[in-house]
């Protein structure tokens, strides 16, 4: 055989499993021989971008993941943070973008199922879900269809499984029209000394697969869909869409938690992307052991499945359990009691090999590490986009002065009814946000607050992302997002403790993507370090593009904070007429990347500000201390839509009789900037008149600027800028467009 023919023959092989020629050569080198078909399939899927993080790994290392509060960092199924009184929280965020584009209901539903499994895999009882969603503009029917489907998918899984969906966020932008983003975060609680790891420890220990039977569904689904551009060929993958079974998952949660509460188990891993291939190789290689399984012993849903199909199936609601030898009956008993199957499929071995049998026949045998640690790692070329400076250029805007009350009031109304600012009630009303009766602050506030069962403490949770800012300046954008997430949590009185992330990007094969990715990591790392909130884990989703058109770089941050006394929780709505309104933090903000620019001028422009992380940290300290001292009647973050929108929202959420505000904002810029400018480190708080001085003293002590801007109540929102009356409207009138917009277009 000549050299050319030799090269041509295997060419079809590597391409079929999504590997490059170089990667195939690497595999042959590592293995010392040509792989057989099953081995090649297994390597192909494990070396996919989705499973191997081959393009992101070198960058992710720069994220700070350590701190006294971190009990378990990246590398396991979920991060675990210490709450300090024997209790710990597990958190993780994951994307299900491509499946949701193909089938929004089931795509989102199985996303919820998957992230929940990561949480109870580590032995934690899931207690909360949050969702971060991106769609194209709601004017288009298809985008509304996707939104409706995704929401009913999340509701249709989260509600039955009995985990409250307590918060989230949604944005609409053109760039997400063909490639919606569906990120879901899950949080669980566990005793701090009972963390379960995804490790196949102990030679001779039995390996079980439990839960659903294995079917042909989803073979290659998640991993391949998420590791390539979304194109016409992806359409052909349609039959591989999977259906979630929340009922089965509920039983699986109960059975797994019952089992891991005892000591019969040494390791647990969920079966997600790449199914048994991934779960077995990862657990073995984390423990530095080998593993041997028999596919013939895996319960099947369909007759006639081949070993390849069993090894690559991505059937939902399955888990891998590594038990202690001799405790097999206990495992079976627990699952049987919950009406579930538990099949012993193999053993932990000492030789580091991942051996797959089909009965007596060995059908694959390779070092487990080849599939995991020895996957290729790339430092892909990175270069900033050519039009970066152009993006930063903000045109001069022709606008009236602050005294044009009709103009600015109309602008506020318009903003309040716009897709990115209007009320999200239509969405969260479909979620059961109260089940398990721990939800102290329900959706609609800056962050959700939950009672921590078995502890005196509460936790605050928020997810925040902003693709527009990251597109304009990925490093600064990432800092702003981390700062906003931390600030949201602090607005409830909770101290930010740590975060998880989900990084949604276009193709890593484009230098522009990798430049933005790297900058996002740097910005996120810097902010997380400065705010003392380590990154406990996360998820990277590349290839979010269709026909060459990518989404904005969209980092999403899930922040967790802790509050010692639930009685001290603070919410955004005004509480009593006459309470003093104080603007804490940075006095000024600009229009770069703001909703105002987009909605009123149709522009996504300007260079986002560089957040003063030191000020942000002092502001957070102030919020936490002031809340603990009982000085805050309300607190609301100034974010999308700026001061005017924040004031309106605090009115909408007000106690009866406390709606309305009469304020004078510092004249720090144009009327548009003062009313609608967006910048970090700004919070609107209200305080009882008698507490005002103490609050100002505390702000002074922490060197946080504080401006008394007016008082709550009166039923009207009246905003003055330097003596001119810019906004004047009944709260009721502003409330209507805000509260009705989404329900109207979704009707």
């Amino acid at each position, binding site marked *: 055989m000549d050299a050319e023919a030799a090269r041509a023959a295997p060419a079809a092989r590597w391409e079929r499993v999504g590997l490059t020629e170089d990667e195939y050569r690497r595999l042959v080198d590592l293995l010392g021989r040509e792989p057989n078909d099953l081995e090649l399939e297994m390597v192909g899927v494990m070396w996919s971008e989705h499973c191997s993080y081959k393009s992101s790994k070198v960058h992710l290392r720069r994220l700070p993941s350590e701190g006294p509060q971190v009990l378990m960092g990246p590398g396991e199924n979920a991060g675990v943070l210490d709450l300090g009184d024997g209790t710990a929280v597990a958190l993780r965020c994951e994307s299900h973008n491509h499946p949701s584009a193909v089938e929004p209901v089931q795509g989102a539903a199985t996303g919820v199922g998957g992230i929940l499994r990561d949480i109870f895999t580590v032995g934690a009882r899931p207690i909360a879900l949050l969702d971060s969603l991106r769609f194209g503009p709601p004017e288009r029917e298809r985008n509304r269809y996707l939104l409706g489907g995704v929401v*009913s998918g999340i*509701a*249709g899984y989260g*509600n*039955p*499984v*009995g985990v409250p969906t307590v918060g989230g966020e949604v944005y609409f932008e053109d760039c997400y029209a063909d490639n919606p983003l569906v990120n879901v975060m899950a949080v669980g609680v566990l005793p701090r000394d009972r963390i379960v790891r995804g490790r196949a420890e102990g030679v001779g220990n039995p390996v079980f697969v439990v839960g659903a039977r294995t079917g042909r569904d989803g073979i290659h689904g998640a991993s391949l869909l998420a590791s390539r551009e979304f194109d016409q060929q992806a359409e052909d993958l349609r039959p591989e869409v999977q259906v979630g*079974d*929340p*009922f*089965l998952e*509920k*039983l699986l949660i109960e059975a797994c938690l019952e089992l891991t509460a005892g000591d019969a188990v040494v390791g647990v891993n969920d079966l997600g992307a790449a199914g048994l291939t991934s779960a077995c190789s990862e657990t073995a290689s984390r423990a530095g052991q080998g593993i041997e399984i028999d596919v013939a012993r895996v319960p099947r849903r369909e007759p006639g499945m081949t070993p390849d199909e069993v090894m690559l199936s991505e059937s939902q609601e399955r888990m891998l359990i590594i038990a202690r030898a001799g405790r097999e009956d206990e495992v079976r008993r627990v699952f049987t009691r*919950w*009406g579930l199957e538990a099949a012993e499929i193999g053993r932990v071995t000492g030789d580091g090999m991942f051996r797959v049998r089909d009965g007596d026949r060995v059908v694959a045998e390779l070092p487990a590490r080849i599939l995991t640690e020895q996957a290729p790692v790339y430092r892909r070329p990175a270069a900033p986009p050519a039009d970066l400076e152009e993006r930063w250029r903000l045109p001069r805007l022709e606008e009236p002065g602050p005294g044009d009350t009709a103009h600015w009031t109309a602008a506020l109304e318009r903003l309040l009814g716009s897709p990115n600012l209007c009320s999200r009630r239509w969405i*969260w*009303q*479909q*979620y*059961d*946000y*109260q*089940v*398990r*009766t*721990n*939800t*102290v602050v329900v959706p609609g506030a800056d962050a959700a607050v939950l*009672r921590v069962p078995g502890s005196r403490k509460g936790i605050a949770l928020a997810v925040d992302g902003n693709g527009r800012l990251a597109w304009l300046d990925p490093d600064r954008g990432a800092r702003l997002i981390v700062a906003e997430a931390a600030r949201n949590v602090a607005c409830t009185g909770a101290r930010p403790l740590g975060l998880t992330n989900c990084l949604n990007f276009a193709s890593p094969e484009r230098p522009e993507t990798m430049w933005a990715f790297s900058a996002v990591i740097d910005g996120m790392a810097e902010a997380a370090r400065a705010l003392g909130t380590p990154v406990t884990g996360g998820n990277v989703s590349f290839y979010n593009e269709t026909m060459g058109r990518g989404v904005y770089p969209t980092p999403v941050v899930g922040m967790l904070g802790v509050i010692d006394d*639930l*009685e001290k929780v603070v919410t955004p709505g005004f509480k009593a007429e006459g309470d003093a309104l104080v603007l804490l933090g940075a006095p000024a903000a600009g229009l770069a990347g703001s909703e105002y620019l987009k909605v009123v001028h149709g522009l996504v422009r300007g260079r986002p500000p560089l957040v003063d992380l030191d000020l942000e940290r002092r502001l957070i300290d102030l919020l936490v201390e002031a809340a603990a001292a009982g000085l805050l009647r309300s607190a609301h973050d100034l974010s999308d839509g700026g001061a005017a929108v924040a004031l309106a929202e605090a009115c909408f959420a007000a106690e009866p009789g406390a709606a309305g505000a009469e304020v004078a904002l510092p004249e720090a810029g144009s009327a548009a900037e003062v009313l609608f400018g967006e910048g970090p480190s700004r919070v609107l708080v209200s305080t009882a008149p008698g507490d005002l001085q103490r609050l100002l003293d505390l702000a002074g002590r922490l060197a946080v600027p504080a401006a008394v801007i007016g008082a709550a109540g009166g039923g009207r929102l009246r905003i003055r800028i330097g003596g001119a009356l810019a906004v004047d409207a009944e709260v009721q009138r502003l409330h209507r467009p805000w509260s009705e917009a989404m329900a109207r277009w979704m009707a």
Partner: protein
Amino acid sequence: MTAPAAHARFRFAVIVFPGSNCDVDAHRALGEVLGQDVEYVRHDAGDLDGYDAVILPGGFSYGDALRAGAIAALSPVMAAVERFASAGGPVLGICNGFQILCEAGLLPGALHRNRDLKFRCHDVFVRVEAGRTPFTWGIEPGTVLRMPIAHGEGCYTAPPEVLEELERRGQVVFRYVDAAGRRGGDANPNGSAHDIAGICNEAGNVVGLMPHPERCVERLIGGEDGRRVLGAAVRWLAARRELVTGGR
């Protein structure tokens, strides 16, 4: 009058079906908050001996396959619930528990998909219409309570003659109203016939309702109106004990 009730302790059974998910909430509300003895009883239990009251909690038993509550209604424990009920024992079905009681024939009618086909989670106001049941014992009819709902199939449906009979015999226990106690407008969240939020059997000891009293028993979480519903059962049991023992 209230003194004996406050100290009274009774044994409550919370039935756990596969897919129940408000079982822990009911357990917590009755146990930790109201200080009662509460135990979980599995769907395959054969009897309910020794319990003073039975709660069928909310959730999605069997994933709501076919119709909410349909499969759970056939569980072995439901035969025991039926015996317990026919002996006069108080039984409360909350949300999915209400659906199960209807499917099992312990309450008339059925719960159909919500009018707008969407799951709805928010607070509603209900007016207490009948004070004779164990779960409204001592609550003045006309009292308006605020409680959360969380369901996709809560539209109470029954043939006209059944509805008429329910009204005539005073079996409508809770009705959806607005904060001021008026029917109509948007008060009814799911399209239920006659604005029905909860009913009882003819004897009055079996009650089913869609709102979740167990989710509002603490000021911090959901308010406290649900305490009145669950607390009524404690008072009712205390009164019954007093009758039986002659106050000893």
